[in-house]
């Protein structure tokens, strides 16, 4: 976390659904431009609800969310979609046009951009996610899940939001596809300057990609810090029903062996092993 100004400020946020279910309680945190954050926690802990608050789909029951200085209670949809984009867990919940091109153009058209600019943004988004040419006029539902997810991300990118929240980017993907998607998100983060927030249950992926972790349980934030540090907080992890990646568990298994309990990847573990045995 650098000295950059916070782009998102969440202040004393509470959110209850109309049926009275308290989904978020006492939420306070800031997001700075350029961060790569993983939002983790048990199923039903409030992660998806929180992201829908961040992009203004849900308004706080009490408390405030400021995004680039704009309160989400006052921000119009047009203002919000330019700030925070949310990619659904299941791309099929968000795709509804007859061609990939129209799908990606839908957002820009909806905020009433001139045709020329719509075209420019669609082409840019297609280039960034690397959609092969044959897919452009194809119906999204004929594509693989990996490609559908790219279409879903492209349709968000076309709105050029600063922050992109991706809900479970690797669910249902095999290992190779998961790494492809995550490398792509890293590229958006490092080369295109997008702030990335992923919601995931895949702890090895968190260890490999996210610098910061926000861990939630029962509608509250239980831990917020560097991934390396959060994964060493055994009691917090237990409360949030999380477990660090298996390689981190191995590093922590016997403290007398001298491995760093904040080890995040197999490569880090191998390097330490080489030092320890030599």
């Amino acid at each position, binding site marked *: 976390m650098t000295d950059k100004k916070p782009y998102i400020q969440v202040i004393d946020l509470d959110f209850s659904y109309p049926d009275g279910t308290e989904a978020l309680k006492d939420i306070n945190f800031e997001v700075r431009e350029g961060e790569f954050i993983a939002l983790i926690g048990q199923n039903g802990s409030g992660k998806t609800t929180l992201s829908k608050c961040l992009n203004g789909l849900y308004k706080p029951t009490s408390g405030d969310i400021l995004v680039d200085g704009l309160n989400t209670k006052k921000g119009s949809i047009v203002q919000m979609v330019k700030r925070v984009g949310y990619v659904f867990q299941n791309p099929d919940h968000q795709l509804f046009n007859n061609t990939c091109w129209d799908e990606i153009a839908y957002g820009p058209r909806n905020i009433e951009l001139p045709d020329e600019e719509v075209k420019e943004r669609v082409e840019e988004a297609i280039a960034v996610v690397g959609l092969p040419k044959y897919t452009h006029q194809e119906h999204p539902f004929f594509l693989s899940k990996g490609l559908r997810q790219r279409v879903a991300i492209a349709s968000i990118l076309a709105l050029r939001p600063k922050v992109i929240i991706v809900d479970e980017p690797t669910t249902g993907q*095999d290992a190779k596809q998961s790494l492809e998607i995550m490398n792509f998100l890293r590229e958006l983060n490092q080369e295109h300057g997008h702030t990335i927030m992923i919601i995931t249950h895949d702890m090895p992926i968190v260890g490999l990609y996210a610098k910061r972790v926000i861990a939630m349980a029962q509608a509250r934030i239980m831990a917020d810090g560097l991934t390396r540090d959060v994964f060493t907080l055994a009691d917090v992890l237990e409360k949030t029903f999380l477990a660090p990646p298996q390689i981190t568990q*191995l590093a922590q298994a016997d403290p007398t062996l001298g491995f760093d309990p904040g080890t995040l990847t197999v490569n880090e573990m191998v390097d330490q092993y080489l030092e320890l045995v030599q």
Partner: protein
Amino acid sequence: MTSVIDIKDYTWKYLHTESPALNNIDLSIEEGSFVGIIGPNGAGKTTLAYSMDGLIPGQYNGIKKGTVNVFGKEVESYNKGELQQVVGVVFSDPEAQFTAMTVEDELVFGMENIGLTIQEIRERLEWVTELTGLTDLLLKPPYEISGGQKQRVALAAVLAMKPKLLILDEPTSMLDPVSRKMIFEVLKKLKTDEDSTIVVIEHSLENLIPLADQMILMADGEIILQENTREFFNNSDLLLEKGVYPPGVLYFFHELHRKGLYQGEYPLTVEQGKNLLQQLVK
């Protein structure tokens, strides 16, 4: 040991695709065994699962060669619904199998369909909701609960029918690590207490490996590797080439092996890995 599944020279091509989804499959699965099937998306894993419970060829158009025997009988020779009483499939997309307006009705639906008595349905409902931790959700509509909860309902609905062969297609893809572990603990209980034969298709190997007697790697419609679990992972180079990443602990020892620093068996759990490290690091 009698085999539950016996597949010979089996090829299946969906009607509108160019190449077969499954090609020359030979596979037998013994009663009471726990088998893990892994492989990249598009390898044919789900098609194989559908073939074992008669959804293929029953519900899909395509061209079939070879034979698929389940409990000693070809899938085609079962009467409608008969095979589904002994084979239960949990789909990777739980919503694809929901039909009822409450979780409770969802769980009862299958049991009513196979003609259980009300008493039996009550007992199994209690057993299965306890086992899968769904007691608080019984009155909720299955569409309003979280993705992970949906997955538990889907599993419970199938378990309630106590199938002799249970096939799970990515049963934990939406679950958090602890719920995921919980599902595998349920499977472990079924393996030890109920003698069920269990086939699990999974990308997440961490929990699967300690339970699986046997592992199968599929790619491009073929079975590339079928071995007892420990021997299976001696082929980790092949697995990595096919885009399958072993879990962290095993992967670490494989890396040591590649650097010529480790020669022994690969550990399958964190505990086994710890014990090995204690011997190696002095």
